[in-house]
């Protein structure tokens, strides 16, 4: 009997904790940036536009770019072409993202991770960016193929971060919009 009550209590606490997290509201205006310079960020920009969000996309946002924004959406994923286009190294990019995340945390601007590139933006050089952004996020929106090995699910579980998994990139639009409703 005692254990049963304990179980109920635990479930209730977990449920409340869960709903309070899910209920976290994100506010506009939104700054969208990349971590790894994959062009996936351009798709997120388009989806945010279609949802009518007040969003600005800065591919290589720096701490000072955060001024005036209330939410930071980061799209992680490595692209050698993207980095080549930006004329920077992977290390430069990692340092930029670290400083951006630190500044957002200091300013209490919540970070939303959007991983939409599936397995093309996993492993290899992408995962250092995925890990960094996921660890610091307050919400994760992930296209399932990128989580086949449970990479994001594990981080979400360990750090108590709400995670929404969808089948297709186009299906991220609605949950993205809902974050701000």
């Amino acid at each position, binding site marked *: 009997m005692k254990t049963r009550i304990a179980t109920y209590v635990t479930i209730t606490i977990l449920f409340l904790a869960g709903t309070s997290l899910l209920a976290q509201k994100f506010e506009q205006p939104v700054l969208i940036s990349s971590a790894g310079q994959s062009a996936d960020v351009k798709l997120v920009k*388009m989806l945010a536009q279609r949802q009518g969000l007040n969003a600005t996309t800065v591919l290589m946002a720096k701490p000072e770019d955060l001024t005036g924004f209330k939410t930071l959406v980061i799209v992680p994923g490595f692209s*050698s072409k993207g980095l080549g286009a930006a004329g920077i190294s992977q290390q430069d990019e990692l340092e930029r993202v670290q400083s951006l995340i630190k500044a957002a945390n200091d300013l209490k601007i919540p970070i939303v991770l959007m991983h939409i590139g599936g397995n093309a933006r996993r492993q290899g050089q992408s995962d250092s960016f995925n890990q960094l952004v996921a660890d610091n996020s307050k919400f994760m929106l992930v296209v399932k193929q990128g989580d086949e090995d449970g990479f994001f699910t594990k981080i979400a579980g360990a750090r108590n971060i709400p995670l929404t998994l969808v089948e297709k990139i186009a299906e991220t639009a609605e949950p993205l919009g809902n974050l701000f409703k």
Partner: protein
Amino acid sequence: MIKNNLSTIIITVITATMGVIAAVSFGKMHHPEELFPSEGLTGKVMLSDYFEGIKGTNGDTEVYLFDSGVEGGTALVCGGAHPNEAASFLSAVVILENLRVTCGRVFIIPRLNNSAFTCSDPMEGFPASYEIPTKYGTRRFRLGSRVTNPLDQWPDPLVFSQYPSNQQLSGFETRNINRSYPGRADGNLTERIAYAIVQLIEKEKVNIAFDIHESSPEVPIVNVIVYHENYEEVAMGAILGLEMAGLQFSPETSPKNFHGLSHREWGDYTNAIPFLMETSNPSMGRLRGRTDVDLVLRGYCDNYKKAKETGALRIAYREDTGEPIAHRVGRHIAGVVELINSYNLYYPDMQIVIENLPDYDMIMEKGVGEFLNN
């Protein structure tokens, strides 16, 4: 005397025989495979009709035209920039042999670097050709080289200075058509071919242009659509459309500072909207095992399965099915179709309407050969 030299004579005769057989076989690479355009074809010219400077060279190549007679936009589909990439050439051939155009015009150049079809890459052990069974019998296609035949352009400089950017690349890249745009009229053969293509794009007022490629599973740029930054929305629209059809493509922006490539220079020097697509071809990879026709066509290689399982690199390889030619050609054709669909949304006054191309599932189910004529 004769007895003493008998072994020398025998070895000489055997070597000479082998040499003749090899030469005859290698010489066959100079005989282009016959193509059988669909009934929608309305014209055929040579690339040299746009620039005299490649006339009479192995760089000259056929340009096929499908003109609907209805005013609209103009598309250009290029295969065979790198003739060692089987799905590049074959995708253009399948389009050529099935296409109907009901609005606007489509140009097709199946052998973009014709000279590179006449040799294969040394030290790579590639088969010189492969065969595809069709409804009417077997058709043989050449598997050429990544670059212009050295018999047509030689020697390579130690360092290749790209024109006009002066970007420094390895000397070998002098013969790579996809480092040679926008080309120049008085340049080497590869630069002149590139120049002729740019002349065609300008003269025919091409609105959207495709450059079809393949690369090895371990390189970062694979299963992608590379787009010029001015036309981002067309690429993104197509990627969403392709995803709805179950095909995942990653968007890649053309680097502004990497010169000579179609997706950069066609976009910078002409009014065309350029797209380059890459599929994953294990026969081109450094980790591949035995390099034979089976690997080129079936695209199955255990080494890539192992490499992917280590997780050390991102490997674009499907462990269960490999990367068969039907999958690769199916992806390219779906990519062309969706990019044109997306283009039509953004440029309604310059529509291009194409029909009768097999979709991805049809090609996977029936094979590439089902969609080849004779």
